[in-house]
């Protein structure tokens, strides 16, 4: 009755070679699967449509009335490079101001003191509730309401001398950013397990040390990705500073184009600059995120360079295994 070839309980074991770990010398390596991959005809259709549309776009621009020669000519013109530097400068400094003030505001907001947390809420309410363009104009025109800036014995000057386009841009962009950063930092701080604070306090660490050494470093994992986005946004938002005569990229491009009458060419030049800067910062952001992932994942994700090396040296992959 029991046919020796019929599947019995013994057949539940993998037939033939046992688990390779057991090291039985007769084991034959399992044959690699060579299956025919599933066809995806729709992928081909959509790819063709996208390529056709792209071709049309290129054709349109190639035949448009654009002096293409202007683009390389102005891409590295002194004025343009200087303007790119100013864009970068105000972005970095405003972001720095925003991050530092944002951390302070977040801690104020989470504090038990009702006055400090109310102040932080008021600040965030105002700066998030008004357009940043308006805030830039407010700072730039501050001289209309405060003729002099008087810091007692330390400093005294005409407001119009203090509130240069650069200062107004820095304050306008940085203080606005602080409101957004405060929310990002608060979310980060609140993402850290309360057990961490308790363990730190139990070891005799003070409130401040606990925040600096234990909570903030862990909050960074949550804080860094949106901060990178904020930075890239700031690179672009800084172009608004053109309305207060800050000579950054968009301002200079507009200015040059009014004499050369080549606005499209100049805007293409600055678009290339913005793209280059945002691309570089995306890469930097990746490395910073990787740094703060330390300890939260067992194995750090590979750097792009490691990925390239791995895929080059690990040999060709089988088709259809992806």
């Amino acid at each position, binding site marked *: 009755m029991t046919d020796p070839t019929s599947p019995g309980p013994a057949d539940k074991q993998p037939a033939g070679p046992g688990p390779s770990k057991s090291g039985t010398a007769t084991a034959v390596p399992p044959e690699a699967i060579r299956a025919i991959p599933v066809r995806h005809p729709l992928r081909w259709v959509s790819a063709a449509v996208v390529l056709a549309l792209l071709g049309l776009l290129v054709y349109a621009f190639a035949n448009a009335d654009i002096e293409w020669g202007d683009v390389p000519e102005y891409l590295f013109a002194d004025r343009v490079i200087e303007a790119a530097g100013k864009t970068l400068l105000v972005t970095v400094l405003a972001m720095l101001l925003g991050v530092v003030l944002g951390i302070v505001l977040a801690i104020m907001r989470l504090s038990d003191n009702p006055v400090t947390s109310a102040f932080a809420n008021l600040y965030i309410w105002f700066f998030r509730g008004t357009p940043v363009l308006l805030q830039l104009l407010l700072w730039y025109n501050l001289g209309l309401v405060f003729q002099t800036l008087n810091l007692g014995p330390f400093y005294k000057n005409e407001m119009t001398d203090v509130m240069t386009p650069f200062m107004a841009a820095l304050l306008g962009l940085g203080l606005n950013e602080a409101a957004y950063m405060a929310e990002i930092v608060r979310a980060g701080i609140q993402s850290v397990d309360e057990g*961490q604070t308790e*363990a730190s*306090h*139990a*070891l*005799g660490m003070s409130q401040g040390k606990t925040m600096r*050494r234990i909570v903030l470093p862990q909050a960074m994992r949550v804080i860094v990705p949106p901060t990178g986005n904020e930075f890239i946004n700031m690179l672009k938002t800084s172009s608004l500073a053109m309305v207060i005569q800050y000579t950054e990229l968009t301002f200079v491009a507009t200015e040059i184009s009014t004499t050369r009458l080549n606005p499209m060419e100049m805007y293409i030049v600055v678009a290339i600059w913005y793209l280059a800067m945002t691309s570089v910062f995306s890469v930097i952001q990746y490395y910073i995120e990787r740094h703060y992932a330390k*300890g939260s994942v067992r194995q750090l994700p590979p750097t792009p360079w490691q990925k390239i090396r791995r895929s080059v040296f690990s040999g060709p992959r089988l088709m259809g295994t992806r």
Partner: protein
Amino acid sequence: MTAMVKAEGVHKSFGPAHVLKGVDLEVAPREVFCVVGPSGSGKSTFLRCINHLEKINAGRLYVDGHLVGYRQHGNKLHELKDKEVAAQRRDIGMVFQRFNLFPHMTALENVMEAPVQVKRESKATARERAMRLLDRVGLADKAGGYPTQLSGGQQQRVAIARALAMEPKLMLFDEPTSALDPELVGEVLDVMRDLAESGMTMLVVTHEMGFAREVGDALVFMDDGAVVESGHPRDVLTNPQHQRTKTFLSKVL
């Protein structure tokens, strides 16, 4: 001899919830003092009051003769400043159910952190002691590992080393093995047994009755925010006097 821990009528409420309803107990120096009781009876809360992670609402708590969290002038109590509370906590080590290691630091950095930051020890001194402590808990080879790379039992042993690095005179354990897989419980209990033999004063909340009977010098059974029964672990565990103790023990033994 002053008691290491002395609780007199300790009360604690969270809003309307009256969690501790007059806890009295005394832990002598070098004693291993076990606390058992059903879930929600206030064991963790009591432990957290001892190092002032929670403020008590009434009664008195002393550690090594010093009032916890307050200063007494005449019959008025003054709250201690944050700095002074932190200073009191340095002498009290605490080990948590869920380890609470700092995940962004290696095992070695976890153990070095408080001596360097709080006692302002040099890194070299702190590192040397940290290595010695990791060796003592059997983890010298894991010094460079991050907590996520360690098993639960290893994490808890690092946590014990971290608490010991401050050279406390009292160690509080809040169910140090109940988050562990059964096969990992033993390695943590071994470290605690070793610590008990070295003469450390230990206050241990635990469900490990075997450990309590074998290592404990005293044991209290807590229920509903108060001590129901106390005595030598052997006596209380084998010959409980109160009905509530009997019911509890019949469930866990």
